[in-house]
């Protein structure tokens, strides 16, 4: 399952980042990211940050997610990525 929600890097320690996913903190690997910085918005898949997105795009995505959550049933968009694609 792809996790569409953007996360913000709040701490970096030896290649691992602490990310904030809509209020919930998790760790993820930053190995696949070029020059990660605290404050970057990232897309995370299976515990690895895959892509940096700029803040405007991140906000836009969060807005879409909130809109989607308002009319779709099912698990919230911040469920952990338990699938493998």
């Amino acid at each position, binding site marked *: 399952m792809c996790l569409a929600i953007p996360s913000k890097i709040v701490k970096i320690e030896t290649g691992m980042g602490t990310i904030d996913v809509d209020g919930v903190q998790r760790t993820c690997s930053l190995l696949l990211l*070029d020059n990660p910085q605290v404050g970057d918005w990232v897309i995370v898949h299976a515990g*690895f940050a895959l892509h940096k997105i700029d803040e405007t795009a991140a906000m*836009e*995505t969060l807005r879409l997610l909130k809109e989607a959550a*308002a*009319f779709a049933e099912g698990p919230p968009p911040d469920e952990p990525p338990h699938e493998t*694609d």
Partner: protein
Amino acid sequence: MALKHIDEYRDAALSRPLIDKINRISRTPARLMEVCGTHTVSIFRSGIRSMLPDTVSLLSGPGCPVCVTDQKEIDAFIALARLDDVIVTTFGDLMRVPGTLSSLQKEKADGGDIRIVYSTTDAVEIARKNPEKQVVFLGVGFETTAPTIAASISTARRLGLDNYSVYSAHKLVPPALDALMANPQAQIAGFILPGHVSVVIGLDAYRPFFETHRIPCVVAGFEPVDLLQALAMLVEQIEGGAPALANAYGRAVTAEGNPIARKLLDEIFEPADVAWRGIGVIPQSGLKIREAFSDMDAEKIFDIQLPESRDPKGCACGEVLTGTKTPPECPLYKTICTPIDPVGPCMVSTEGTCAAYYKYYDDR
């Protein structure tokens, strides 16, 4: 088709103009396929299917990684779990997939050391903490997941671990698109290309496929409005007779993808001809571990005995994955095969097409 939760959906302000546009311009009957399991779930959950004109039908393709994993590979995973002094690590969605004789879940219940991890970082950590055991990660997934598994091999090498290995059953999306086009029965008029696979490989990776087939192709994000945007672009291309390779997920997908991830994939893996469930062998559609890392290739280092692999009897997963059958056309659907007691992987995985139909499609 009756779908649940439609009324709520109609109110979405952003989506409305896109729905109207698709309904206004679509004339030509078109079968459009999404090849990403997360898209399948999002399309069903949001009720998009019932918003579309009769001319547009949506097919779910081979986008659920567990569903396309060949039965022989599932049997190999189970055989690995039966070895002494081996800890098998995996993402959770493989656990219930039925192999020929067993499943990982059954093996675990019978005492096999099988651990579900959130990320390959956890699998490497398990190897570090258990030097007396061999730790195998079951590598299943497309280009999005494969770099995270490549990273674990590279990290294990750097840490000098001699007890970590990967069974690589990874699959690649662009060669699968070629294989889908080779099947005239599916009559695919356009593709919704996967979002996060494209984050890694980039839009340009589809260029050779597009140049060969000249079929409308649009990369989409995961929200209903993202998917509707992609659908509107596909319908526009079809009606205008001008197929294009386009990107409706610009906030995440670039032309070249993620160069670090692509380099790591290339360093650890090489493309190989591999079998997909229900489709057969597709040339250069899998990733096998390169010779330089063969000491971490579980396929090479363990001597496992496989039963004569058999796909589940009567299961139409193969036809479902190629868009030639819908789940309700499978005689076992909802009768013998349910999410509680699934016959095939398409009903096991939450991203499987049969499971999505079961949960969201109201065929009463």
